């Protein structure tokens, strides 16, 4: 007891760690004693511990160091000391990716994994699989198969889990172990059964039919291992979700019944997993939901904190999608808000906030304030998210909530937490004009003392965007200019950019701004100076249109594409000046991505089901690489298509077949300046057919000219191949919109399902009707974000041509619907949130901006009025009269 106390104290003082002062080079030198004969096991074990400690602390080893250490460790195979040997396996595993020639221990490890000492076997398997590369896998295959079905459950589990890891380097080889994995599923050991199911699923997961069979078989045989049942529930859940999205319903009820039956399982883990799956299913009806929610409700009052936590966390997550069901648990949740476990309490309160009435907000916020300082950042973020939801639901509560947020902003906290608060304030500002000035004030105060550069930069950008359009823009200048004096270079640069926005938009502030910018030209940092000079000289001209283009609207093109295009231009210089219009535009994030930046739809599937990135990573990637850029990458590799110029726009994929047909074909329409490329991604789902020379024959509308066809040479079972058709757009723009008939044509060779090899070289031609491909106006237009639509519109009034027409939209009955239709139809970007119709209005105006292929700007103003249906006055301004004509005529 005393010893324990002392330890604890030491820990607090940070001196309890015996390895705290060890140093890499010294430790590596100590490995010399591994060469002693006989080895001193105690000393060696201690040194190995230090090495492992260092590696796990993130210490980097160079290749030579690692290789030397590795070979020193291999000497320890001569020791008979069980502890040392097991440490040695760990050492081998850790160094396997850094050291060279690690396969030197292959024979020694195979000997240990098949040897008499059980304590070595599992660890040796794990080490062996980590040192094995594809070329060596053959040599150990026999041993792996034996180990998977070994009677010792530790050995079997180790072999199964290692197989899973090996699928990353050699999926095909591991597929051959399916019989052994199958046998292991029947094991009495709960872990072996679980791991075996993991391997089986992994082997089959790309084949829907096989997964379905696997699940059907296993649900009937009633697995012993609760872990395996949980896994099975997750697989079934995934199948249900996929079936749902593909519209099929063949086995929906069997799968659902299985999950439902698990609600009555004897293991709590399984019950929870089943309830979790049911509440998360997109298609769950309230009848189906009820039993799952009652299970969670029961768990809420369990004496076990883990169960309470799991239940309330799940309820919290589905509070938005099934508020009514969650409200049924309100009483239980109320009991949890004083739970001694703060995590549970936080989740309970935030759940109540999400579902509760406006009147309870103040009470709950007070409760949360009483302990918010005690909870971890992760849960503070949960609180922030609940507040965000509340603000959207009860706009009138914004001042209470905003105060709360600003208090949180002043507290200690990591970047992610602070960013989530700032994000929420920004959302509130954007959603609720009344909250704007207070929100900006809070943010101004925050950047006065903000240690996170990235956050400060974002807030400065926002101030530059929103500040000039407030009642009193001048009050923000001081906050921004303070940054120039006090901060690091990136923040100073952002501050300079923000100030220039004021200069461009507020004429009365311009003289002052110019003085400040002139001072910034003396900055020590290149970027800051360059920006200041750039903005200063533009503002100096006092040319509204110039300032609009180069300050207010900023760069519309995609930065990576610009970089690539400039690089190309410098490689092969020409007399023609670089054409900015040839650079693809940056992707405009969809409304969904903006509202839901954390990518809520993405679910973590658990360790064995998929390697999906966590939600936040997914959306981060999605925002930086536009659809066009990733397709452009792919199209560049098709030599026949490179001559078509830069890719302008790519459509979403369109399915041209029913799901679950023999061949699945989806089409992506790519617009180039003068050409249309249809990309057909084809999947062959017949395991007894090999397709060759796969192509799609299209019958284009008049005016289109076929330029090229690129067939897919070979399409084996379960693979996706791509065929292309390139056409030239008609000169007459009106003729570009139309319907293409499409037929899939190919040569079939029958083959043996087991090997995939064709029975003979002879094949026969066959074809398959596809659904029509529609080419629309939207396919030829790229979205453009306008920060200040008014200025752009005014400017276009002088120089663009204008067409105007009035339409009656009889098929829609509300303004919202009309707005949605027109935005979708034109494929243009609504400016300044004009796609939101304020409640209770009978008329509304939408502003849209876009570019037509070839680089012609289009601005659209649509005035909508409610009158037995909706009437719309559409004004189109474009740099090209034909384009304006096309837009007005296409709408009619």
């Amino acid at each position, binding site marked *: 007891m005393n010893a324990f106390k002392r330890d604890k104290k030491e820990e607090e003082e940070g001196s309890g760690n015996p390895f705290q002062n060890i140093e890499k080079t010294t430790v590596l030198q100590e490995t010399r004693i591994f060469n002693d*004969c006989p080895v001193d096991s105690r000393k060696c074990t201690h040194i190995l511990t230090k090495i492992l400690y260092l590696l796990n602390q993130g210490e980097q080893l160079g290749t030579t160091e690692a290789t030397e250490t590795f070979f020193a460790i291999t000497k320890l195979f001569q020791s008979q000391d069980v502890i040392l040997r097991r440490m040695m396996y760990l050492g081998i595993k850790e160094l396997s990716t850094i050291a060279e*020639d690690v396969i030197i221990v292959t024979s020694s490890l195979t000997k240990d994994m098949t040897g008499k000492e059980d304590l070595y076997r599992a660890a040796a398997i794990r080490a062996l699989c980590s040192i094995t590369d594809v070329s060596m896998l053959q040599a150990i295959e026999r041993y792996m198969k034996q180990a998977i079905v070994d009677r010792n459950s530790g050995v079997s589990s180790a072999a199964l889990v290692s197989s899973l890891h090996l699928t990353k380097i050699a999926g095909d080889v591991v597929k051959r172990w399916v019989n052994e994995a199958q046998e292991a599923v029947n094991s009495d050991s709960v872990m072996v059964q679980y791991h075996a199911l993991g391997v089986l699923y992994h082997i089959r997961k790309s084949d829907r039919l096989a997964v379905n069979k696997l699940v059907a078989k296993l649900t009937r045989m009633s697995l012993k291992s609760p872990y395996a049942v949980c896994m099975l529930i997750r697989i079934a859940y995934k199948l249900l979700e996929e079936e749902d999205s593909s519209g099929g319903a063949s086995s929906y009820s069997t799968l659902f019944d299985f999950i439902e039956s698990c609600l009555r399982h004897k293991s709590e883990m399984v019950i929870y997993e089943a309830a979790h799956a049911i509440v998360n299913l997109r298609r769950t009806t309230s009848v189906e939901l009820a039993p799952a929610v009652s299970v969670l409700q029961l768990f809420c009052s369990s004496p076990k904190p883990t169960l309470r936590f799991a239940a309330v966390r799940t309820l919290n997550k589905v509070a938005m999608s099934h508020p009514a069901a969650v409200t049924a648990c309100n009483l239980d949740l109320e009991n949890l808000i004083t739970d001694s476990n703060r995590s549970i309490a936080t989740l309970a309160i935030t759940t109540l906030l999400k579902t509760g009435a406006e009147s309870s907000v103040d009470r709950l916020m007070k409760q949360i304030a009483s302990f918010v300082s005690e909870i971890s950042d992760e849960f503070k973020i949960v609180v922030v998210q609940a507040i965000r939801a509340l603000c959207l639901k009860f706009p009138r509560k914004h001042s209470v909530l905003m105060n709360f947020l600003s208090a949180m902003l002043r507290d200690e906290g990591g970047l992610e937490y602070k960013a989530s608060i700032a994000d929420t304030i920004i959302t509130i500002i954007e959603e609720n004009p009344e909250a704007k000035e207070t929100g900006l004030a809070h943010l101004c105060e925050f950047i006065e003392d903000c240690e996170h550069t990235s956050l400060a930069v974002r807030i400065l950008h926002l101030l530059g965007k929103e500040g000039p359009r407030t009642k009193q823009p001048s009050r923000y200048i001081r906050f921004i200019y303070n940054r120039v004096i006090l901060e690091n270079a990136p923040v100073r640069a952002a501050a300079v950019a923000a100030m220039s926005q004021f200069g461009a938009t507020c004429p009365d502030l311009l003289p002052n701004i110019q003085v400040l910018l002139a001072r910034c030209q003396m900055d020590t940092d290149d970027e800051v100076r360059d920006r200041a000079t750039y903005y200063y000289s533009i503002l100096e001209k006092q040319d509204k249109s110039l300032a609009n283009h180069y300050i207010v609207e900023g760069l519309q093109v995609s930065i990576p594409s610009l970089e690539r295009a400039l690089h190309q231009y410098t490689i092969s210089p020409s007399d023609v000046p670089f054409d900015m219009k040839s650079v693809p535009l940056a992707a405009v994030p969809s409304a969904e991505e903006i509202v839901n930046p954390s990518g809520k739809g993405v679910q973590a599937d658990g360790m064995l089901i998929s390697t999906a990135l966590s939600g936040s990573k997914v959306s981060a990637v999605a925002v930086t690489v536009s659809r066009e850029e990733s397709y452009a990458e792919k199209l560049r590799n098709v030599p026949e298509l490179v001559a078509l110029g830069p890719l302008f726009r790519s459509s979403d994929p369109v399915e041209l077949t029913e799901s679950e047909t023999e061949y699945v074909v989806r089409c992506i329409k790519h617009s180039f300046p003068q050409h249309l490329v249809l990309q057909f991604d084809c999947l062959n789902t017949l395991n007894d057919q090999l397709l060759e020379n796969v192509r799609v024959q299209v019958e284009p509308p008049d005016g289109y000219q076929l330029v090229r066809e690129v067939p897919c040479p070979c399409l084996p079972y379960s693979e996706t191949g791509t065929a292309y058709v390139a056409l030239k757009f008609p000169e007459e723009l009106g003729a570009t919109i139309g319907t293409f008939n499409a037929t899939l044509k190919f040569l079939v060779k029958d083959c043996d399902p087991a090997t995939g090899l064709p029975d003979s070289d002879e094949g026969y031609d066959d074809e398959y009707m596809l659904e029509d491909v529609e080419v629309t106006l939207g396919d030829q237009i790229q979205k453009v974000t306008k920060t200040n639509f008014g200025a752009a519109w005014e400017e276009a009034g002088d120089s663009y041509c204008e067409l105007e027409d009035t339409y009656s939209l009889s098929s829609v009955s509300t303004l919202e619907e009309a707005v949605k239709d027109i935005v979708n139809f034109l494929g243009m970007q609504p400016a300044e949130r004009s796609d939101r119709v304020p409640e209770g209005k009978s008329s509304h105006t939408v502003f849209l901006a876009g570019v037509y292929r070839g680089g012609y700007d289009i601005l659209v103003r649509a005035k909508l009025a409610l009158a037995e249906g909706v009437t719309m006055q559409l004004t189109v301004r474009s740099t090209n009269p034909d384009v304006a004509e096309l837009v007005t005529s296409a709408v009619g």
Partner: protein
Amino acid sequence: MGFWDKLVNLLGFKKKEVNILVVGLNNSGKSTVINHFKNEEEKLTEIVPTVGFNVEKFKNQNVGFTAFDMSGQGRYRDLWEHYYKDCHGIIFVIDSSDRLRLVVVREELNLLLQHPDIYGRRFPILFFANKMDVRDALSSVKIAAGLGLDQILDKSWHICASNALTGEGLQEGVEWLTQQVRELISNRS
């Protein structure tokens, strides 16, 4: 080391432990040779080609041998050197029926002898002219000449013709090695 320890050592009472390295081209019979020395209950019934190396232990006249049985395939020969530093003896196995590769053996042997971790160190090298049972196998004398063993001056060496399948010749060799190792150790102490 005290007088008593010295005496014990001289008389060979105290158990001695040495590391030896077993090298030679692949398929020459290294693993089969080592397998022969092991205890009955530890003997393998099937010898598979070695990938990397194996550590095997056996005893002869109170000396404990820890043998690093190296793989002789080309890819692994360069890795032998990692184990040179701390060996107290080498067993070099030659397939005497493989006339074609005798030049390769000579080359590898020279590389080994010239290696900084080996050159000049006084420890014994035992050569097994293995597979003597195969028709057309070269005699140990021919092999010694072919490899130029008489030029080895810094080490004591010995060559035996052997048949690792039956064990013929192996005992003679290992007894010589044990004797050498004993001498080496008692001189050192």
